[in-house]
């Protein structure tokens, strides 16, 4: 793995209903120099993005209460800068349907689980604007 660290202050919101999965992503991203916040579903994620600045949202598709697609569509329909936060969607679905729906909802990129740590960090760096 390369060891370019993220500039301090780049903030990522990790949204997944599984605490172990959140910890897995958080640990990988903090190790790469990002500041990480967490949310357990789309509703909590929306509250966080509306009250704090983030450079990227990493969101799971399947979650109880508000899923990733609903969150993303709702985010993109907001007024102001918050609507333009880069979003990386992660799903267990490798078929084309989720990819198409993610694109249509406004995802900047889409990864299928399992996501290796190095791969996750690479995409997050690009999307959060750490590397071009």
């Amino acid at each position, binding site marked *: 793995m390369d060891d370019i660290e993220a500039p301090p202050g780049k903030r990522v919101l990790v949204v997944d209903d*599984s*605490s*172990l*999965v*959140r*910890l897995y992503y958080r640990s990988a991203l903090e190790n790469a120099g990002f500041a990480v916040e967490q949310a357990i579903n789309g509703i909590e994620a929306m509250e966080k993005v509306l009250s704090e600045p983030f450079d990227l949202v990493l969101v799971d598709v399947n979650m109880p209460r508000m899923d990733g697609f609903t969150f993303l569509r709702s985010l993109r329909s907001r007024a102001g800068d918050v609507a333009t936060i880069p979003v990386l969607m992660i799903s267990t679905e490798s078929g084309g349907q989720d990819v198409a729906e993610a694109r249509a909802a406004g995802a900047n990129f889409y990864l299928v*689980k*399992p996501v290796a740590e190095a791969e996750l960090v690479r995409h997050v760096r690009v999307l959060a604007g750490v590397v071009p």
Partner: protein
Amino acid sequence: MDDAKGRGSQAVHIAAEEVQRFCEFLYRRTGMSFTEGKRYFIDRRLEDRIEATGSPSFQAYFSLLRADADHEIEHLINSFTVNETYFYREDHQLRCMTASLLGAIVSRKKPGGTVRIWSVPCSTGEEPYSIALWLMENWPEVDNYSIEIVGSDIDTRALKAAAEGIYGDRALMRLSRGVIERYFTPVGDGNHQIDEGLRNSIEFTRANLIDPRDMAQYRDFDLIFCRNVLIYFDDASRRQAAENLYDCLLPGGYICLGHSESMSRISPLFRVARFADAIVYQRPEADHG
């Protein structure tokens, strides 16, 4: 005749038949069976409890115990369970889990499905946290499934410590520096507290392995770690515990025992499953008859 150990102490003398009565009581309540060879172990703990409760004699203490005054049974159980362990203990089983067992388990599940793992007894949390850490560090599919880890113990004091997740250097001796830095925070006195996310990801509950009603709350596990506890039970309790554990497993689910324990000698319900890293026991996929 046995007061060599009590040199200069105020220890209450406990007669052989009293120890026997006490052991019978302990067995009925917990299934833990201690023979004469464990006399020193029993006397030490019994003396501690007699002193802690301010009882003037064994007889007085035993009355208090039978009445369960101030939850004395629980305090007693806590003093009898051996709580010292460490992270990544018997790591060949953890390797077996990620190299072999989980592959077989998830082959029966959909992506995103739930994998349930039970650590019983979990003592002060080292084992369930080790399972979680090991999965995050060694299982590429960790984010592909919803993993539920439950840690249970009969000892409520141990469970409280498990939920707090504070450990000394000795408990962490098998972990790499990288893992310690990523998942632990120093909290002074050479102690480390495990990550809050990890603490929240494990459910800690009280369970008595030989109590079928207690155990009926625990179902649908894919994998159970039940290490170094059945050795404390006598044959009847051991068999009861094994049958209870069988019911807690999903068909095809696995159970890992301690390295000196063998399920084959306890119950015919399980099938032996041999892997490169460990021998484990499996609830057959389809029950016979």
